[in-house]
């Protein structure tokens, strides 16, 4: 429509005249994608170990040597007793305490049995659990070695067991960037396409220019579309930046077809900016709009499986996640990137995202009142 052209002219002019916005649309995705993938991982490595060796025997030293050379642990503290070791854990200088009791070597040789104490800081449950598991595995290995040393080939004592082969599909190196980069892309996309149009409209409400527009013959949908188009385009820019950075910096190459990503991103952008509009229709002040948007965006981000898998959440949380458009787009991104999923594999996501787009945009148009 003719009117749309004039409105778009205005919107684009205003957007580029604003010194902050265009720069942000470029810089924010760029910095986020360059920095956050370095940060976002749950790896457990460089575990700080506090050693309490009451035995100080050949065996205990051998064990400690083995632990150190495993590469998982760094000895950051050597204490004379458990209490001192605990202090180092309290001060976060150590994560795990390995306490070898006195008579360790003697007990192994004479009674063929000895124990030792592993205490781990489990505030970070993941770290505590894995750290303990690694240490136990090393102890078990040492156990086999000692048995061989003292009694000869352990093969005499055990039937051959099955070999367990772990295989990690799609990401054999278990790189975290593979998991996190798409998540960060979605997060940035959502923030920009959600926040900006909403804040724009509420800003006009506060200044009074919206009233002026309401008096004109401009139709609701024309006005709304004129507000959204610039931000859809911004969304594409952000997405493209994301894909480029993923490719050039993180060496993430989509196994599937890039076009699929753009297709789904389009629907996502439609839906999410529609959501931003709904918020802006109900908010009177910029503060309100912003607070509501922020809450929803943050909730969506963390409940949609971006950083922690949805499958791990309690049932009701998983239910909630089904209402988040982000859940579906992140699935699309990850699967296209890593598994080469095609459009047909992603039909459920397609329908879900379409549903959101229709729902939010419909609601936005209906709830926008030119008169009251």
């Amino acid at each position, binding site marked *: 429509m003719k009117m749309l052209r004039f409105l778009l002219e205005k919107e684009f002019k205003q957007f580029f005249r604003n010194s902050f916005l265009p720069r942000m649309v470029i810089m924010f995705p760029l910095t986020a994608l360059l920095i956050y993938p370095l940060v976002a991982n749950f790896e457990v490595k460089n575990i700080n170990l506090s050693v309490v060796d009451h035995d100080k025997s050949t065996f205990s030293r051998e064990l400690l040597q083995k632990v150190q050379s495993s590469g998982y642990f760094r000895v950051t503290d050597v204490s004379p007793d458990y209490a001192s070791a605990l202090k180092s854990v*309290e001060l976060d200088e150590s994560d795990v305490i390995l306490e070898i009791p006195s008579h360790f070597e003697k007990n192994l040789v004479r009674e063929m049995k000895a124990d030792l104490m592993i205490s781990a800081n489990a505030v970070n449950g993941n770290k505590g659990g894995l750290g303990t598991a690694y240490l136990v595995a090393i102890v078990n290995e040492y156990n086999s070695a*000692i048995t061989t040393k003292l009694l000869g080939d352990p093969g005499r004592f055990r039937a*051959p067991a099955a070999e367990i082969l772990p295989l990690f599909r799609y990401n054999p190196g278990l790189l975290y960037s593979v998991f996190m980069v798409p998540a960060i892309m979605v997060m940035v996309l959502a923030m920009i396409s959600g926040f900006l149009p909403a804040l724009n409209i509420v800003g006009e409400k506060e200044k009074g220019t919206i009233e002026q527009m309401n008096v004109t013959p401009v139709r609701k949908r024309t006005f709304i579309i004129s507000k959204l188009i610039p931000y859809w385009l911004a969304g594409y820019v952000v997405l493209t930046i994301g894909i480029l950075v993923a490719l050039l910096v993180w060496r993430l190459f989509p196994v599937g077809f890039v076009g699929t990503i753009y297709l789904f991103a389009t629907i996502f952008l439609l839906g999410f900016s529609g959501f931003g509009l709904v918020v802006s229709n109900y908010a009177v002040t*910029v503060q309100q709009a912003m607070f509501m948007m*922020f809450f929803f965006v943050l909730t969506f981000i963390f409940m949609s499986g971006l950083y922690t898998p949805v499958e791990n959440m309690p049932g009701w949380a998983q239910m909630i996640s089904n209402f988040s458009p982000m859940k579906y787009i992140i699935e699309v991104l990850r699967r296209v990137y890593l598994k080469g999923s095609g459009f047909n594999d992603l039909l459920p996501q397609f329908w879900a995202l379409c549903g959101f787009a229709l729902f939010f945009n419909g609601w936005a148009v209906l709830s926008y009142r030119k008169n009251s």
Partner: protein
Amino acid sequence: MRQFLIFTQKEFYHILRDRWTTVLLLILPIAMILLFGFGITTEIKNTRFAVYDMSHDMATRGIVNKLETSEYFTLEGYLDHPGQIEGIFKRKKIGMLVVFGERFYENQLHSGDAQVQLITDGTDPNTASTLTNYATNLIREYQQESGTLSPLPIQILPQVKLLYNPTMKSAYNIVPGVIGMVLMLVCAMMTSVSLAREKEMGTMEVILVSPMPPLLIVLSKVVPYFTISMINLFNVLLLAVFVLEVPIVGNLFLLIFVSLLFIFVALALGILISTLVQTQLVALLASVMGLLLPVVMLSGLMFPIENMPVVLQYVAQIIPAKWYIEAMRNVMIKGLGISAIIKEVLVLALMAVVLITISLKKFKIRLE
């Protein structure tokens, strides 16, 4: 003094009359702590797994049974032929696929080259390695029980103790972080937007013309958000303890003291941001993208700082939330006393002083 009280009252009215926002300010932190506390977990349970079994013998069935009956795995089904493998992963129906080679049991007994493959979706490395660990342990347990793996004659028995969080609940790690985030949200973000708004609307002039010193003007704006933050802190702690079952092991007063300190820092940050921006919009975007997001990503709330590249670890040190979260974890979860958090307290106090000084300097008492 009287003027100060009057202005403060005005600020309270602003906020209370905006009913929506007030409700949001009080309800949202509650919602956040519940969502994050329950939602963000690294614990894994009831993962669906499938089996492609070329042997179908006693051993394979035994292993499958062992996995199924554990709390970690649920059997989704059996595959009939290898062509289905690709599809089942592509559609994300399962987290793990167990593949048994032919004549598994026989090979195990005689030739020793029986193989079981544990194929996981490596997209999420954390889940993949955890699942593999769990499954490996379960299979080894089964082998010991069924006699195919006899225990070594010489036994080193590790006694494992998990300190502070024996059930390894994610909430213990997350909750202190979420508290920090909530406080930062209300104090820094809302304050900065509120101050920027006055600038934008032009009502700042009225205030500046009054004979009140700038410090008091700023304080009057800050007091309501401070009050709301205290209420939020209280609510959030209540929920953490009674609903999320995260204990407060240490001294409650120490906890509150540290939180107060952090609130001051956050408020000062909000004021500083407002002095640097011209419009609400920018205040908002700056707060969200320049403040809140870094807090969430870099402060150790969710992702361990020790995993970050060294440069970013240095950056993390200047994020006030990082110190607050550490102090909170030490007091709340570990139950330590003030001597353990002296460093954090001093850093936060220093930050508060520096920020307040800069904000006051920059708070223009004349318009441009």
